[in-house]
């Protein structure tokens, strides 16, 4: 269960404070996957991070009894001069995984990331694809009740993408997800509850479809079709 109580968050801008959302109260029951929608700069990522206990609101609290992950596939915590293995060991360490279970996690990360011997090379020598594969492998190697996903469902090549989707589908049986994404099909597939962050604050819907509908109201129709065409062209 995740409960938001009187949650308020604003950002400082040169023209005064910009309020993202104000006095939000909500209870998300156990096992509900949450999708967060909104335009760029609406505060989706900030809300995600506040729910994950990484960022803090101006007022209010997030109350939860769940183990919430760090944002999935996040590579900014890596130390460039350390090897992939050492970075993975560090993350195991702060999550209290030592000894034999740590070895198991490391083996699995190495397998999943498919970076082979580069696992023992400094992270600064990695390509960006290798970096994000390592990060993604790490996020799913540590078990949580709830995973935060910030638009990184698709890293790496097609083969890796497919593998990620399979693992996430597997994970969904035992854990839930809070997802920020612009890809509607992905949200429809993975989420039960929708949060729409609009200019007039935050709205919560019992189904993600309602949030998607509201989100798409703001988009002129022809543009959507153009986007679809562009996407199809890319896929083909």
């Amino acid at each position: 269960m995740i409960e938001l109580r009187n949650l308020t968050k604003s950002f400082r801008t040169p023209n005064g404070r910009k309020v993202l959302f104000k006095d939000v109260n909500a209870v998300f029951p156990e096992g509900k996957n949450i999708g967060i929608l909104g335009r760029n700069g609406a505060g989706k990522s900030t809300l995600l991070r506040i729910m994950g206990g990484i960022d803090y609101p101006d007022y209010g609290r997030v109350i939860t009894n769940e183990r919430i992950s760090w944002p999935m596939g996040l590579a900014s915590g890596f130390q460039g001069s350390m090897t992939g293995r050492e970075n993975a060991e560090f993350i195991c360490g702060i999550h209290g995984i030592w000894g034999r279970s740590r070895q198991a996690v490391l083996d699995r990360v190495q397998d999943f990331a498919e970076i082979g011997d580069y696992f023992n090379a400094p992270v600064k020598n990695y390509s960006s694809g290798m970096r994000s594969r390592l990060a993604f492998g790490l996020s799913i190697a540590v078990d949580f009740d709830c995973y935060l996903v910030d638009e990184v469902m698709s890293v790496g090549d097609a083969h890796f993408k497919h593998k990620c989707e399979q693992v996430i589908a597997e994970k969904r049986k035992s854990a839930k997800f809070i997802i920020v994404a612009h890809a509607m099909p992905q949200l429809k597939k993975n989420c039960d509850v929708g949060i729409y962050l609009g200019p007039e604050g935050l709205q919560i819907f019992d189904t993600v479809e309602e949030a998607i509908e509201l989100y798409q109201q703001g988009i002129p129709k022809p543009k959507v079709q153009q986007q679809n065409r562009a996407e199809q062209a890319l896929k083909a």
Partner: protein
Amino acid sequence: MLKGNWFTVVQEKAAMGPTTSRTVWQIQRDVIFALLVREMKTRFGKLKLGYAWVLLEPAMHIIVLGTLFSFLGREFYPGIPTVLFMLAGIAPFLCFSHCFGKSMAAVDSNRGLFNYRQLRPFDAVMSRVLLEFAIYLISLIALLGLLAWVGISATFNNFLLLIAVNLLYLCFCFGMSLALCVAGAKYPEAGKFAPLIQRPLYFMSGVFFSLEQVPEQYHPYLAWNPLLHVIELTREGLFSSYHGMFANLPYLAFSSLAMLGFGLLVYRSQWRDLVRSK
């Protein structure tokens, strides 16, 4: 094959996650320990001589100061070889100056790590201070041993005093670093003033003199500096012929605990602002 392996493990949900039963103390311990290992690897791992730099840095300072003052051709303090006298001053001061510089940048240089919710600036500062302090103690002991091996030694005095002084000094460094980490994050300009404060302290803290050698009329000004008391008392603990006539353990105790309390209060009042997006 590889894929199948992976999925079975996910299905089993083997005990790999952060265990729910971790207490706050266990989390704190895990985080500090992991950070310490990480700091060691990044600090020394990439250097040519690696961990030898723990000893080399204070050694270089002592060689420079030692040769400089041996040209004066006299014993600095009766009964104590000049090199040892310098070592007991330099080692604590280097610890102070490292804590000072590192803690100011603690928030900025660890931004990426604050994406893990259990890791906050407090942990970054704590692990750095602990590591600096461990390096200080190890280098001091190793260099004393090394110098004794080549024949430069003095009679040892008081082990309990050394323990007391170093415990208090650790509190002092930690409190100061916490306060500085907040200051450095809130006012980036503070970094510009850091050398301005540090350099005079090098000359005022008795790194290469003893308070007894300073005319008495200046004592009221110099004696406010807790660092001076740390260095004086360290020498008193190490060498039996050192008297440390003006060093004051109660004053050091008071100022260290006050500094620790101040640092904790400052951090407590500001810590969310350090990581909060604005």
